[in-house]
């Protein structure tokens, strides 16, 4: 009797142990698959191209931190970095403000055409970019905004507007009406209510849209490549791509440039991962 139960127990344990091990192996391999390329890139960014050519997979020794200085100063990555910063920070600030204003009006007030305006603003989220791209090129040329960071910023505002309105409208609609009633009693005007109640109370949602918009625009490529041709005006993604086109063999410097573009995003993610993920999941979960 004792032997039978012992055997039964072993039968139950053995496959479980095996499947645990197999599972750990699969997860380990998958982790290597997602993280490996990134770590490989990180090691290459502190190695010289000569070292990389000798062995593509060696550990950096010594760490050539001066690669970053050289990418920043000699290879124009500083220019691209500041262009990106200017365009993205400007666009994110504007889109958040005007998106929040629209979202507030749509969430709070009842008026004819409320849902129609919401639908119009929101629906462009499914547009393929080409439907506006070619004409935007013509329009920006007409208005002398082609090859200008201001023009690109304005286009970026329009690109992120639907998502911003969508996320903020959903959040603002859940702010209790009592808060507004009380503010009205205290004699707050409609604009004051927006400025002094909605924006502070809505801060968690606004932070979410800020970080989501920042990462998406920081990585934007298609509109930048069409609307910017002047090397002085390049943003990071097109700057890296142009550098890669010209210096195909200079792997070390490409890796360093790529790292420069990745670092702000990683920093943003480290500090705001919860907010970013909340924004990304907001749409897809019902």
């Amino acid at each position, binding site marked *: 009797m004792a032997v039978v139960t012992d055997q039964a127990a072993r039968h139950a344990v053995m496959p479980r142990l095996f499947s645990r091990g197999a599972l750990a192996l699969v997860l380990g391999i998958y982790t290597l*698959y997602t993280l490996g390329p990134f770590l490989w890139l990180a090691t290459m960014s502190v190695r010289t191209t000569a070292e990389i050519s000798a062995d593509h997979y060696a550990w950096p020794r010594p760490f050539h931190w001066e690669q970053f200085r050289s990418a920043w100063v000699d290879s124009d990555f500083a220019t691209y970095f500041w262009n990106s910063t200017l365009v993205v920070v400007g666009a994110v600030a504007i889109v958040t403000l005007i998106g929040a204003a629209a979202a507030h009006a749509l969430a709070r007030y009842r008026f004819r055409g409320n849902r129609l305006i919401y639908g119009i603003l929101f629906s462009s989220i499914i547009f393929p970019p080409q439907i506006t791209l070619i004409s935007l090129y013509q329009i920006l040329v007409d208005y002398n905004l082609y090859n200008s960071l201001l023009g690109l910023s304005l286009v970026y505002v329009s690109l992120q507007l639907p998502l911003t309105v969508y996320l903020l409208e959903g959040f603002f609609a859940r702010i209790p009406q009592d808060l507004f009633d009380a503010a009205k009693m205290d004699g707050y005007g409609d604009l004051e209510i927006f400025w002094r109640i909605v924006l502070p109370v809505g801060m968690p949602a606004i932070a979410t849209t800020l970080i989501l918009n920042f990462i998406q625009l920081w990585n934007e490529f298609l509109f930048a490549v*069409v609307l910017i041709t002047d090397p002085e005006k390049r943003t990071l993604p097109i700057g890296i791509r142009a550098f890669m086109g010209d210096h195909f063999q200079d792997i070390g410097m490409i890796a360093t440039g790529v790292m420069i573009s990745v670092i702000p995003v990683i920093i943003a993610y480290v500090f705001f991962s919860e907010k970013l993920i909340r924004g990304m999941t907001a749409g897809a979960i019902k």
Partner: protein
Amino acid sequence: MPEAMALNVKTSDREASTSARSLADPRRASRVVLAIFLAPALLVYCGLTAYPAFRTIFDSFFTIEGVEASFVGLANYRELVADETFWIAVRNTLIWSFVAPVLDVATGLLLALALYAGVPFARFLRVAWFTPVLLSYVVVAILWMWIFNYDWGVLNVMLRAVGLDSLAASWLGDPNLALASVIVTHAWKWAGFNMVVCLAAIHSLPREVLEASELDNCGWGEKLRYIIVPMLRPTLLSLYILAFIGKMKIFDLVWIMTQGGPLWATETVSTYVYKRAFNWNTFDLGYPSAIATVWFLVVCASVVILNRLLGTKERLEY
């Protein structure tokens, strides 16, 4: 989201009660106030989304060389029907749009389940699996061009290391392998996004149902098949549609990795529009406008059809 629904009910109750004293209705605002709030967004929308979209559609009936535009009627569309490259691009894009979302969503769901089941180091793994989502297409493209490199790319190095030299290939240079290689790269980037959404959805499932199934000694396979997947259906469907739309628009990754080559093997509609408008020196913006118009209609129609077909009652979000 049940709590949101509860709130909705509450507010509509209040709407009914306040309409009685409509004079002081806090949900009313003067036209001036509404205009101040809505005008900037509508202005941006009209000027930089609606007007360009209409102009592209309008332009598709013209041949446009610089400032010279001459009306050609439907000639661009007739040319399009006979354009073999366009149809190759359509085929590639459709293959991509139907195949890749299954890959993305399935991987995402499995990863989310692993985290939900409480594997060790779950916090670390969640971050590690999510990292690719943060990287721009330029970064992802460069990384994977190196991974696919014939001489020293990771893939071929590993194949040679285990003695499978014959399988080592020029992944992006071979017309038979290029599309699959780019699709794998794209899946690498997006699996983490689907994982995060699935994980959030699993966590928002009612606990009682999952606990009850555990009491009933439901195995993981059964739990997955009979409880989790059916309850996650709306999330999985919207993820599928979201991925589908994303693939219909795909440009950046393909453009940087292969420029649509070799021999149009990875050409997508987006890269073809870009080539015709800005890359080939054809100096005509009318024809690419026609492609963009057709594709715009195809994407809109697909979203409507998919929504109907997959039975998502709610409007598509995100």
